[in-house]
């Protein structure tokens, strides 16, 4: 059924269709509509789940971990400070191999207080052992939740669905909400290999000596390495049933592109407008939207970008003392595989708009120079 949904409600519908069994959440702007709708769904019994209205995000994630260990499918959503408060338990989820799915609305970190979008909140959690899916549309948000559960539960690795504050979370789009029956066919009930039960009393997560710990982390990485192929495979299976394709990356007019703009989140759709605009003027520009940051899609990024003459990475985030984080990631993936010059742009921090004009500047600067003139090129900052 086609509905007009805001990004946040697309998350709620994704969770509902995935038949989540335990939801634990704490309100934070701009996430609130996600859990408001879920709590209504629980109250109306549209969704057969327990909703634990916790007193903090830290407890939200802790509750999800307990429930997941019991073998229940669990979901939560948060943003910025809330995600940062969860940090300790994000490690607990991946280390405990508990496939929780979390919706995070990208919001800039305080201080100063900001409710507007940038990616430093989720990127600060890059190394916690979670898969990270950066979404570009509300349809993608809904579809990603369902697919993420499937991948997460197969690998026993948690997954984060990420959407930009306001430009996606509060933006209404037409979304196809698939039939429950069809989703059930795609996503079977959660059947973990191990779960906590008095029938088989095990101790989970106890003191682990240097004799064992290393191997546990090795196994997590080995399973993470299986994720790229599984994400692609799951995307294809989803496409067969629902007619919509999602993969690790989303290339747009990259095949013959001389300049490829690398983006993530909703910025990717603005980039497409810029691509079309410049192609009309005769400049061969393309856009590679990185949808999955963890696991990093090395092969896709290498094969698509190495055809270009120049690559421009647009970061709505920064690693202070280094550079934009997607820029670092792309450069490290290309190192030794391609000598294509990679330009790094930082823009749109704290929700400053990224528009066609922003891309115009980026494309012109990339075109003008053979190699990046400065290590960081700031677009739209008042210096």
């Amino acid at each position, binding site marked *: 059924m086609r509905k007009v949904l805001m990004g946040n409600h697309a998350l709620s519908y994704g969770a509902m269709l995935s038949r989540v069994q335990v939801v*634990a959440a704490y309100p934070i702007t701009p996430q609130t509509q996600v859990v408001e709708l879920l709590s209504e769904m629980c109250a109306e019994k549209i969704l057969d789940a327990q909703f634990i209205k916790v007193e903090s995000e*830290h407890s939200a994630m802790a509750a999800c971990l*307990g429930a997941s260990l*019991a073998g229940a499918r669990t979901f939560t959503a948060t943003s910025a400070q809330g995600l940062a408060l969860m940090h300790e338990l994000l490690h607990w989820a991946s280390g405990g191999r508990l496939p929780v799915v979390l919706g995070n609305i990208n919001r800039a970190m305080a201080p100063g207080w900001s409710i507007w979008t940038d990616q430093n909140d989720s990127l600060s959690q890059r190394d916690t052992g979670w898969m990270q899916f950066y979404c570009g549309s509300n349809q993608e948000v809904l579809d990603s939740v369902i697919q993420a559960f499937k991948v997460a539960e197969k690998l026993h690795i948690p997954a984060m669905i990420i959407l930009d504050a306001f430009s996606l979370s509060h933006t209404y789009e037409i979304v196809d909400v698939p039939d429950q029956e069809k989703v059930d066919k795609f996503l079977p009930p959660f059947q973990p290999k191990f779960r906590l039960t008095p029938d088989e*009393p*095990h101790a989970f997560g106890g003191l682990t000596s240097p004799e064992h710990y290393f191997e546990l982390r090795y196994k997590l990485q080995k399973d993470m390495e299986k994720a790229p192929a599984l994400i692609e495979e799951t995307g294809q299976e989803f496409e067969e049933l629902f007619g919509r394709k999602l993969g690790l990356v989303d290339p747009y007019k990259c095949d013959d592109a001389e300049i490829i703009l690398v983006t993530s989140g909703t910025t990717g759709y603005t980039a497409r407008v810029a691509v079309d605009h410049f192609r009309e003027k005769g400049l061969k520009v393309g856009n590679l939207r990185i949808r999955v940051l963890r696991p990093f899609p090395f092969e896709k990024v290498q094969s698509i970008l190495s055809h270009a003459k120049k690559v421009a990475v647009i970061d709505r985030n920064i690693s202070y003392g280094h550079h934009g984080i997607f820029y670092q990631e792309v450069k490290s993936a290309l190192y030794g595989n391609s000598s294509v010059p990679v330009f790094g742009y930082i823009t749109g921090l704290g929700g400053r708009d990224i528009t066609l004009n922003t891309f115009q500047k980026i494309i012109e600067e990339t075109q003008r120079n053979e190699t990046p003139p400065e290590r960081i090129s700031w677009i739209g900052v008042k210096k």
Partner: protein
Amino acid sequence: MNHPQKKKQNKMRLTLPLEEYMHSGHLACQGCGATLAMRYVLKALGQRTALCIPACCWSVIDGPFPYSSLDVPIFHCAFETAAISAAGLKAGLEMVGDHETQVVAWAGDGGTFDIGIQALSGVAERNDDIIYVCYDNEAYMNTGIQRSSATPFGAWTTTTPVKHYKNRPKKDIDAILAAHRIPYVATANISYPEDLYRKVLKAKNIKGTRFIHIYAPCPSGWKTRPEDTIKLGKLAVQTCIFPLFEVEEGSTWKINIKPREKKPVEEYLMRQGRFRHLTAEAIALIQEEVDRRWARLLKYEETSPL
């Protein structure tokens, strides 16, 4: 002919079940009160129990991966999350069709009075269906005897050295929990196993948040002799330093043991290295505070339901 042997057998009466859910091979220190607490609590709860244990002595006592000294499953959870991990686990178990298992948050005083109080308060306010047991050894013992807000006035710890011993009273966690109006709050003591057993059994048959605060001596941290652990537990009750009582629905207070004659606190304090530096004046202050608290508790009981 008489049958003296048979007669002897008849005299033997067990006050606790024989079943054991805790086994040898655990890693507790000699004379550890927390270990007895676990043993008695599991005797009351039985095998259909699941434990959430945050960072505390018991996260070590149970044994390292892949071993466990208990017959029940354990979720080793983050330090500040015992209560909510248990509530999440309970919700998850119910959603997969297990409505029977008692889920128990099992935390030390640091994990309860200090870092875990936020999540505990959240669980209590929602009245989530778990049993929360705090085994109280009155300091961070697992990390090497640092003061917590459960450390009593006057005590030495490694962060409250003799020259600057703790000069604030122990936090009144039972009153805090009672103020949440949860169905059941009880104090218990490893030196009174029948009372402890009865309280856990009572808690088992109540729905909602149940809080049991167990006094658990720590010879390593208190600088006491392991063989004095039970004696100290008795003295804590006989001096009214750690009274045994129950609170139902936050309003009905009932004292379980009222000593006919209160023993002076000095008798309790002087058996412990952690109090040996105290002057007569300091001891008098402690006596006064203990008397005041006891009088208040009597009043609570008298005027119940509050």
